[in-house]
């Protein structure tokens, strides 16, 4: 319990703890994949991992290095085409949890992964773009965002809406016809934010051990809502840390 760990490790462990056995989870490469595989290797062995490359129920014994890693196809219950992933599995709402990252995020969980600064046609920074995110954000039962918290990322207004959270506030998802639940939880290196059921605003509900509310406010580009009952999360257990580090070691070996 008293082992040293990094803020990123705490973030990954907190994300893994969000996942429950028996649910189907749409995962991208990077932190989401690490968190999902950590969950599967610890408290949620029955977690169903779905990669947009077409691997349903992948059970990798090491961390995949890309969403098209061969280990995903080799261990999947079924390998299907990419159109089928989106049309038969994501779109009808069969997937319980979608994991997303963000380059920018606003208080309603709207996400930008497209361009930062300048005009769309002449941006300051060109990011990779949408990928599967807009429809993951629209259709999964709920969305979990994993992102390091800073004023650059947690902005008053995103420069481009790549994936919709709660739009401009309550009722907007229904008005837009988005059938998934939206970004219920945002897990950062500082703590956990949850969407307020009434206002839809991301609200700090949990701090990682040793983090202060003040520090989270400083890393947030809008006046941050803080829950009345703010809790502090448990640090990573020795088992969580050991499994996480073993998983990450498989990635270094393979690369």
């Amino acid at each position: 319990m008293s082992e040293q760990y990094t803020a990123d490790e705490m973030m990954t462990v907190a994300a893994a703890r969000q996942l429950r056995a028996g649910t189907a989870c749409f995962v991208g490469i990077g932190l989401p994949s690490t968190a999902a595989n950590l969950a599967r290797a610890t408290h949620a062995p029955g977690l169903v991992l779905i990669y947009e490359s077409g691997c349903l129920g992948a059970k990798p014994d090491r961390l995949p290095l890309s969403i098209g890693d061969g280990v995903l196809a080799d261990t999947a219950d079924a390998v299907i085409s990419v159109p089928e992933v989106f049309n038969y599995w994501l779109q009808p709402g069969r997937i319980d949890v979608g994991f997303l990252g963000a380059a920018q995020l606003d208080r309603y969980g709207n996400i930008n992964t497209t361009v930062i600064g300048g005009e769309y046609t002449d941006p300051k920074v060109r990011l990779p773009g949408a990928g599967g995110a807009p429809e993951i954000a629209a259709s999964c039962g709920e969305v979990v965002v994993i992102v390091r918290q800073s004023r650059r990322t947690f902005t008053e207004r995103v420069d481009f809406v790549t994936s919709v959270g709660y739009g401009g506030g309550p009722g907007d998802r229904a008005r837009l016809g988005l059938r998934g639940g939206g970004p219920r939880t945002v897990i950062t290196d500082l703590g956990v934010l949850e969407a307020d059921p009434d206002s839809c605003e991301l609200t700090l509900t949990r701090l990682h051990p040793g983090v202060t509310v003040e520090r989270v406010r400083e890393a947030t580009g809008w006046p941050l809502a803080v829950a009345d009952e703010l809790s502090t999360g448990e640090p990573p257990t020795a088992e969580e840390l050991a499994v996480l580090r073993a998983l990450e070691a498989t990635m270094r070996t393979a690369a």
Partner: protein
Amino acid sequence: MAKLVPLADGIAELVRDGDTVALEGFTHLIPFAAGHEIIRQGRRDLTLVRMTPDVVYDQLIGAGCARRLVFSWGGNPGVGSLHRFRDAVQNSWPGPLELEEHSHAGMANRYVAGASGLPFAVLRGYTGTDLPRHTTNIRSIDCPFTGETLTAVPALNPDVTVVHAQRADRAGNVQMWGITGVQKEAVLAARRSLVTVEEIVDELTPVAGQVVLPGWAVTAVAHVPGGAHPSYAHGYSVRDNAFYVAWDEISRDRDTFQEWIARHVRDAEVQA
């Protein structure tokens, strides 16, 4: 029946200046060797279409082959940015690059419509995002039964699609397996198609998870072992993850990039 051709002949015949070209392969089976041959042959003004403009399109863009990019996610998977893509968008180097940007679901459905001989596809997608503000190729459509409003995207019908596969037989029947992405749709949506393969065999023995493209639905097949490197061919090679990491450094600087292209593509020893 598909013709068996050398790669250079296949590219020379099937990929023309100004064409709309799709090189597909979802992380797996990316037709890098074909991309390099397009660079060697100096194609210009291409509209490049691809869900995930990976390192292969970074190379084509940096080499000046592309005028326009139709895509849904332009990054170096697991590594970071595509520097040539960014340099083209942010600084118009080596020339301006027009973008048409979609989501994966939209791109996949555009290929499906193209493969199906339909002018458009319907999906639940894009709603509330800023993507529709930047192209007229995302529109709304009402269900004639329920009145519900959905999204429509037009069919993609590339002039030519190039994919890599594990095997073909001598009649040009193509077999691929593992992660097969959107390749079947991309080939069937295209007016012409070229498939590079690891191996030409007398008979295709069935493999679990296989996708087979009959030779009569493919224009040409070229025997290009290793033609997916640094991507991979399930059962034949593994992904060269170190190269993807190294590409970040190679591609960051224009000169380093140009030297790499000169040495490894333009002046490379190529099999006949």
